[in-house]
């Protein structure tokens, strides 16, 4: 991968919760405007890795992080980095849809409001519309923006969460199993959305579904027991993995 194509990069990342080490010397490059899938069995450290990318692990008291994570070549674990600004640049979508129990409009407008991204109500309205549009939700909710976000269906809620994340104009979007709580149809819509979003954003997605990883991602990293076993282009990894363990996992022999 050429240097200019790399948006984020982890170098020698070690993470431990108390006495238990979760990540061992992880190195990974995340390509610009591509989808990188993190796969691996439960408890292998892929969620931990994802949370290191926008410093959500800071919230956990017992978490100790050692190593370097770069965004556009800049170490985000440097002392003078403002996590608030960092999280504006790196958005996140969670496993279970978690809209705020406020109106649909407020859900999307909250991020721009706290960051002061817009100067007037009209600008904010435009931004909300743009974000909902990009998340493919505008047509479904344009007549009921004042309804609570929690009144939407599961798939719509998850798209609302995506709209909320892209409303603050991030560069990277982290997705932690965004489809695991959704039915196949809603999953398909989100997958198409991801395909569309990568034109503008860099996406890192955790998934337990091999098919999903194969469908949506350009690059894949296989985690096991806190280490990256293999990483590379998805096509190559799924058709011709270098290691036996990767092949076994992809084929569903363990996991």
């Amino acid at each position, binding site marked *: 991968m050429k240097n200019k194509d790399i948006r984020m990069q982890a170098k020698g990342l070690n993470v431990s919760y108390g006495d238990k080490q979760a990540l061992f010397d992880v190195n990974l490059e995340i390509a610009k405007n591509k989808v990188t899938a993190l796969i691996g069995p439960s408890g292998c450290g892929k969620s931990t890795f994802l949370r290191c990318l926008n410093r959500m692990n800071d919230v956990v008291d017992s978490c100790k992080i050692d190593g370097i994570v770069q965004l556009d070549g800049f170490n985000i674990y440097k002392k003078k980095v403002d996590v608030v600004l960092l999280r504006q640049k790196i958005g996140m979508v969670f496993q279970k849809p978690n*809209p705020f129990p406020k109106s649909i409009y407020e859900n999307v407008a*909250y*991020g721009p409001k706290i960051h002061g991204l817009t100067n007037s109500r009209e600008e904010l309205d435009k931004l909300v519309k743009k974000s909902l549009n990009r998340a493919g939700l505008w047509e479904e909710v344009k007549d009921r923006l004042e309804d609570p976000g929690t009144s939407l269906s599961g798939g719509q809620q998850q798209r609302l*969460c995506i709209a909320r994340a892209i409303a603050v104009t991030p560069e990277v979007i982290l997705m932690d199993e965004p489809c695991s709580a959704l039915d196949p149809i809603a999953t398909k819509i989100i997958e198409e959305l991801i395909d569309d979003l990568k034109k503008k954003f860099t996406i890192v997605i955790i998934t337990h579904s091999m098919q999903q990883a194969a469908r949506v991602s350009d690059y894949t990293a296989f985690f096991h027991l806190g280490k990256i076993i293999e990483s590379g282009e998805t096509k190559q990894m799924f058709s011709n993995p270098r290691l036996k363990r990767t092949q076994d996992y992809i084929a569903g022999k363990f996991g």
Partner: protein
Amino acid sequence: MIKRTTKIAMKRAKKKKNPFKFKLGSSKKNQVHLARRHARERRFRVFGFSAIAASMIFLLVFFASIIADGYSAFTQAQLRIVVTFDQSLVEKGNYRKILQNSLKQQFPEAKGRKQRFMLYKLVSKGGVNSLRKLVDNNPQIIGETDQVWLPASSLIDMYVKGKTNNEVDESKRKIKDLQIKWLEELQANNSVRSVFNTAFFTNGDSREPEQAGILGSIMGSIFSIVVCMLISMSIGIGAAVYLEEFAPKNKLTDLIEVNINNLAAVPSIIFGLLALAIYLNFFGMPRSSSLVGGFALAMLVLPTIVIASRNALAAVPPSIRFAATALGATKVQVTLHHTIPYALPGILTGTILGVARALGETAPLLMIGMVAFVADVPTGILDPATSLPTQIYLWADSPELGFVEKTSACIIILLLILGIVNGTAAYIRKKFQYDW
């Protein structure tokens, strides 16, 4: 050998028709086992139902007895007396004499000091004030003679309401035969009536049961509850938010947490003693005032509010906090924009229930002197006051027969207020609580 219960269970099992074509649980052992499981379920239900029934019966008896005792306090007997407003006496302001003269005129057969004294006792001492008010509002009445409805004394009031025991010998009862005779004369003239007892809601405490009212204690309760809410809500919610959202999880916070829970279990009288020692003896705040009462009650409900608020905050799912954090909200923004607003219905419910407890609390107020005889209705938090529960305590202790119904009436009012407060809490919980 088969146990007796097993035999019964088997009998029941045979009685039950099997709706299925196939044989379900065909073996005898299976059938018995199933029958016993059903029997256990039935027993459990009967047990639960009887527990509910028993508590409902207790509650009903309690309400019935209080209402039966207290409802009569909401009416008051009045006597129609022909009063002559003598000009010289009005000018002197001696309305007592006017009343006494009028009574003497109406019942000339009352001879001697003793009998006259008995006669004067027909009308409440508050009747004097009624006459004064009448003249103040209507000065042209001076010099005239008019029929005036005056409140009966508690003695007569009780007799009219049938609360006195008239079977016993005259020497053993307060109301004398002569007074009964006069009253019957008045009744024959249609000069006795029963009206709504407004004095009960507009007066402060009094030594005379017929003049005693609850306005003073209601105002005292309101003032002390307002003080209590201001202090306990601000401190309690603040403490809860800090402990739940910001405090590091270490031994010190554990210790604080354990002690808050302990504090909730401290008997209320101890808070009264503490308030006495700190606020009255050390800071020298005014005794019997609603201010100190509010402070004492605030200490009492503080742990309740802290615990309720913490539970409400903890009920906000972490995923909401993560969502806001991941959008780049600071810790304070997450707390102020999300956690607290979503927890607010729960916090308010807990606070209102805590305040309801404070409203019915007596012991701490006894220690700081909010149990004194206070005739004036308090107008501020520094005035001496009583509260509704201490007023009940005071009246329940009074020997006069007239206070028995006042006590029950005061309990009815207190229960009504508590019912409204708790109803509000239930409404807020139902209407605004988020279902996660």
